[in-house]
């Protein structure tokens, strides 16, 4: 029997996405059947079915904690929206304070913008941290669902009329995703440190 070249991308996808302890055996089984003559389309179909089954397992396993995690993340975002509204209401006071502190107008605008951007980023980090902490069993799944919900809901908040509105929104969304992923990473690091201490 002549050896057929392995399907690198599909195999890479399986290695990256499957979490189960038998993931390597599953890939081995698929490679074995591919070597025995199954087509590359069969292999791709099987790979996608395996990834889908794995995601379905994670959703089933997460149960209510997936919903609670997404809601917790949204609480952080809505808290930021409230705080942001308060800041905008007092923006005149902030400019007045900065002017009296000797900051010129241009610098003042920049400082207020920077404060808003940092606050927004901090809240997105907090939301990602919360989501990953609440659904600690499947943090990647919870973060993916949360990022998708942020995409859909913040897009619906936009009053998009011109192409550059989309561009601005995309920059904001990119910042949000960066913050959420950073928060999830911090939660994962904390969990790692904790498990090193407790040995669990």
């Amino acid at each position, binding site marked *: 029997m002549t*050896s057929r070249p*392995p399907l690198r991308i599909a*195999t890479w996808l399986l290695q990256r996405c499957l979490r*189960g*302890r*038998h993931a*390597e*055996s*599953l*890939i*081995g*089984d*698929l*490679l*074995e*059947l591919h*070597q*025995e003559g199954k087509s590359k389309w069969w292999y791709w*179909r*099987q*790979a996608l*079915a*395996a*990834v*889908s*089954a*794995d995601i*379905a*397992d994670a959703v089933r396993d997460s149960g209510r904690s997936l919903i609670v995690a997404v809601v917790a993340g949204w609480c952080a975002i809505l808290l930021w929206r409230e705080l942001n509204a308060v800041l905008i209401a007092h923006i005149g006071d902030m400019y007045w304070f900065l002017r009296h502190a000797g900051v010129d107008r241009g610098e003042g605008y920049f400082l207020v913008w920077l404060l808003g951007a940092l606050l927004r980023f901090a809240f997105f980090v907090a939301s990602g941290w919360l989501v990953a902490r609440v659904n600690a069993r499947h943090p990647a799944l919870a973060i993916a669902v949360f990022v998708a919900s942020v995409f859909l809901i913040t897009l619906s908040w936009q009053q998009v009329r011109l192409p550059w509105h989309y561009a601005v929104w995309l920059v904001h969304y990119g910042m949000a995703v960066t913050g959420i992923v950073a928060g999830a990473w911090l939660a994962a690091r904390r969990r790692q440190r904790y498990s090193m201490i407790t040995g669990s």
Partner: protein
Amino acid sequence: MKRQHLSQTELMVMLAILRLGREAYGVPIAEEINKRTGRELAIGVVYSTLGRLEEDALVRSETGEATAARGGRAKTYFELTAKGLKQVRETQRSLQSLWNGIPQLRSDSA
């Protein structure tokens, strides 16, 4: 938590393992189900089911040999635990009691 019942796929996978004996790993399990029922289960679905059953201690696994055709990856063989066997028997009993006494399903009425 005690498992109340087996799903149809779980039952099929467990029966295939029983039929295959020492040769029960992903590929033959999927092939056995396909041969006996005509249902084509993706290998990933078989493994996902096996993962659930193993978590509930209804099956146990053992790592087998690796071959070049498998990209150097080892096979994982599965067998039923005593608890798994008991669960299959209970499922068979409860299904049997549902089937019994249905006149339309009696072989002599066909």
